[in-house]
């Protein structure tokens, strides 16, 4: 028996523990359960973007066989929301976006519910439509919410401005912007915009809810936030938290879109209307895109001032976040975009006004990167344009200003190597990988221009100040371990990473660790959410704590068996052994359920390790200056894109997409690479082809995948290059930072920069379809 001194899992490209079952097609996602007696709900949705509801007639719908209930907004005329409670789950009195739920039909079969939905007659009186953030911001604009000041604040950092369409106004005031601005020798200002887009997870959102005779509410959902469902049901339906049980299976892609609670309250109302029976509510693709929350739009104006040598002195940032009809997580995104508004640059004087704007568009929630891909597009386009004005190489200009230990963030957090990592190293490495020194723009043929663009990015994990995770480990009689944790597997590989952290700590074979893949909120310890690139950090620390607890118990039981002090023992290779004489030890399997003396007496019992971790010393932001500590660390990185652009027809091909991330210690380099590539793909798809198209009445013209184009096989970059800089974070498990969102953050900016260089025109609006590049070239580009 070896002592396994050389044993390692962290840093190894271990195969994902969910891959085999997923390849076999046997994984059960939320929509894969069918059972007799299950009732089906379908939504009646608004055909107007802004209108008064005059009447709802359900008589014809009731005539459809199998209809069991029809629910309208009167059943629950209250507002809910994660940050500001401003949204009735079912519209009542008026509708505020095209696609908004107006009624729910419950029937025996889905086709019956669909038939009945067609027969619900809703009479509307159209109201003036707020169809852009610009319009929303103008004085005298029609109001989407007349009484926003009366809405209940669920978290403190949200500031609606009564009598306007401003759902929240977040301010950053650092240094003395006004004075500093006047001292700048070179200044540049530009405006950027893009429309709302969608997550397009391949699995549409779906939920099942029942209310048991004893009053328990059982929710099944494909959610990133099972415990938030409990919180929301408690807050708004007044159900005791302990009486709400949430089940979450593996999730078929989320990208932030399954982090908020939208479908579950509707299914609860539907179940309540049929006496608590189990009701399923599943989105069609169209509903998933516009009825359930989507991704923000943005209009950003950035002014940067520098010395003539290129040292940044002052920055002013105005973000108009298109949150659509309700603030949901867009209010948090507005805050997150403000607190990292500068990007990873040292700017001593910062003035930022970040507005969460109500419009009559589908409402938005978190999207992978939480405001950062969006702000980064604006910041990094500005950096390139100011570099041009200063006649500096874009990389040299960035390196002159790259954030480093000793600088402060916009919220005045003091940075050190531990919390900020090494942004400069990332950009140097990206520069090598993209072969920057071989030229940024080359004409390689009559209709071929190759050009390169670069982008720096950063993001801190803006979790709740009390965000936490817990883990319970139970040892089996064969010495293997069950790992119970409420982290949700959305495809990011969280479960594998946690298993690796545990394997490393217990010096155990990964095969002997069994991770519970599905969540039951009654069995699993509380976890804040699976969002914000926080799972490896929070749940990873909880796993380490649980492992330490288990090791303590293992040593105690083994000490009894071996008649020695627990301090003299070590754990590894499935054994507990004497440090001084590793040959002498016991198998974990022989003590996993306690130590049994030869006479049958048994002591200690099963090894059950538990552990937890909660964020330390985070604070909300000051209302007037933004001062505060928003997150435990930043991950920083650089991305680069090389395109081949055709100056004749303005089409282009993405040749290379590069990410260099300082993600701290990388637990699994292949999964981390997967995350970076997938993130780049998502970001490049968003930047190159996505966006809702609104008509004059605020109707979405492309709410389906035939007309809303996402990246297809064959359109991906010819080559992805991924590398990691690993500046450890002391608090992270084995030094890890967050990585899940980061691949997406700089992708749009790097594409925008490369195409602007290729086309010789500043491209400041997304999506970068050939037609829009042509328009910009003609000087005809209009802001969205």
């Amino acid at each position: 028996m070896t002592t396994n001194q050389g044993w390692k899992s962290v840093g190894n490209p271990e195969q994902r523990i969910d891959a085999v079952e997923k390849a076999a097609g046997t994984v059960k996602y939320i929509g894969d359960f069918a059972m007799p007696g299950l009732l089906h709900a379908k939504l009646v949705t608004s055909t107007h973007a802004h209108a008064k509801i005059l009447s709802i007639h359900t008589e014809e719908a009731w005539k459809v066989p199998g209809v069991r209930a029809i629910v309208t907004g009167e059943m629950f005329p209250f507002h809910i929301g994660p940050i500001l409670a401003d949204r009735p789950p079912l519209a009542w009195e008026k509708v505020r976006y095209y696609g908004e739920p107006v009624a729910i039909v419950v029937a025996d079969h889905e086709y019956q519910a669909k038939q009945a939905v067609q027969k619900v007659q809703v009479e509307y009186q159209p109201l003036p439509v707020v169809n852009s953030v610009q319009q929303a911001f103008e004085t005298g604009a029609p109001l989407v919410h007349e009484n926003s000041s009366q809405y209940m604040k669920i978290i403190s950092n949200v500031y609606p401005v009564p009598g306007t369409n401003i759902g929240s106004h977040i301010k950053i005031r650092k240094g003395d912007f006004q004075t500093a601005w006047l001292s700048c020798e070179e200044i540049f200002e530009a405006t950027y915009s893009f429309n709302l887009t969608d997550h397009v997870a391949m699995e549409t959102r779906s939920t099942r809810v029942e209310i048991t005779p004893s009053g328990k509410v059982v929710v099944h959902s494909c959610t990133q936030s099972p415990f938030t469902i409990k919180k929301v049901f408690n807050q708004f339906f007044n159900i005791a938290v302990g009486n709400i049980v949430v089940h979450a299976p593996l999730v078929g892609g989320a990208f932030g879109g399954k982090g908020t609670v939208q479908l579950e309250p509707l299914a609860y109302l539907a179940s309540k209307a049929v006496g608590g029976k189990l009701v399923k509510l599943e989105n069609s693709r169209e509903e998933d895109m516009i009825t359930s929350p989507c991704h923000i739009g943005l209009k950003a104006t950035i002014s940067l001032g520098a010395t003539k040598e290129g040292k940044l002195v002052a920055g002013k940032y105005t973000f108009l976040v298109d949150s659509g009809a309700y603030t949901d997580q867009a209010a948090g995104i507005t805050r997150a975009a403000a607190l990292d508004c500068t990007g990873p640059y040292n700017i001593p004087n910062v003035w930022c006004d970040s507005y969460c704007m109500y419009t009559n568009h589908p409402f938005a929630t978190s999207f992978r990167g939480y405001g950062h891909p969006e702000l980064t597009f604006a910041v990094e386009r500005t950096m390139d344009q100011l570099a041009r004005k200063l006649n500096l190489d874009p990389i040299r200009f960035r390196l002159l200003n790259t954030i480093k230990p000793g600088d402060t963030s916009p919220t005045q957090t003091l940075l050190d190597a531990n919390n900020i990592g090494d942004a400069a190293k990332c950009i140097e490495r990206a520069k090598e990988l993209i072969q920057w020194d071989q030229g940024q723009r080359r004409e390689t043929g009559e209709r071929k221009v190759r050009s390169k663009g670069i982008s720096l990015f950063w993001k801190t994990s803006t979790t709740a100040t009390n965000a936490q995770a817990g883990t319970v480990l139970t040892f089996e009689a064969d010495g293997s371990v069950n790992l119970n944790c409420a982290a949700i597997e959305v495809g990011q590989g969280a479960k594998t990473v946690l298993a690796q952290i545990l394997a490393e700590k217990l010096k155990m074979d990964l095969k002997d660790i069994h991770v519970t893949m599905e969540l039951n909120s009654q069995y699993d310890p509380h976890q804040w959410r699976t969002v914000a690139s926080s799972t490896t950090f929070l749940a990873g620390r909880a796993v380490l704590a649980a492992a330490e607890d288990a090791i303590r118990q293992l040593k105690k039981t083994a000490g009894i068996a071996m008649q020695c002090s627990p301090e003299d023992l070590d754990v590894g290779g499935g054994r507990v052994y004497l440090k001084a004489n590793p040959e002498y030890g016991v198998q974990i399997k022989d003590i996993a359920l306690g130590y049994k003396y030869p006479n049958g007496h048994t002591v200690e019992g099963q090894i059950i390790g538990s552990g937890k971790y909660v964020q330390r010393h985070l604070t909300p932001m000051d209302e007037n200056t933004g001062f505060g500590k928003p997150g435990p660390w930043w991950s920083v990185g650089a991305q680069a894109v090389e395109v081949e652009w055709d100056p004749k027809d303005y089409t282009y091909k993405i040749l290379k997409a590069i990410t260099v991330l300082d993600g701290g210690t990388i637990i699994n380099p292949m999964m981390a690479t997967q995350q970076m590539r997938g993130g780049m793909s998502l970001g490049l798809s968003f930047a190159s082809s996505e966006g809702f198209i609104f008509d004059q009445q605020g109707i979405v013209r492309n709410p389906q995948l035939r007309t809303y184009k996402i990246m297809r096989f064959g359109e991906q970059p010819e080559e992805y290059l991924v590398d990691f800089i690993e500046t450890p974070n002391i608090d992270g498990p084995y030094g890890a930072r967050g990585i899940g969102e980061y691949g997406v953050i700089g992708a749009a900016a790097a594409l925008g920069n490369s195409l602007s260089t290729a086309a010789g025109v500043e491209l400041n609006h997304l999506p970068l379809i050939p037609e829009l590049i042509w328009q910009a070239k003609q000087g005809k580009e209009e802001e969205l």
Partner: protein
Amino acid sequence: MISNGKSKTVIELHVNGDSHEVMVRSGDTLLDILREQLGLSGAKRSCENGDCGACTVLADGKPIHSCLSLAIESCDQSLMTIEGLMGSPIQQAFVDNWAIQCGFCTPGFILNCHALATEHPNASDEVIEEWMCSNLCRCTGYQEIKEAVQSVVRASGNA
């Protein structure tokens, strides 16, 4: 076929080598019947519009969108779902090449790839692209899927 003359018909479906009697409405899609009556949930509902390929199954060896096929049209065909493809080299290739993240699009991609490898054992990259662009994946960057497909096509081409 047994019909009650009104809304439902009993038909026989041949899936993964077995025959099953199911009772269908004329409007039921093959996807819904496979999932709800036969418990074959590997074919996924995602767009129900033929745009994403998550519902792909094989009919007489050819990939089809089961969301756009009526169950009643499928009785004379030999159908294969992902559940009928246990332990194939393609499944292993998707595992080995890190081509799986959330896994929701995976069955559709794998079946499409299986048909491709059968029809075009020496498929060029252009042919691979032509076949695979019918399926959408939102998690990966497609690179891993491409490598998985190439490894299988190459292997079967050499065989």
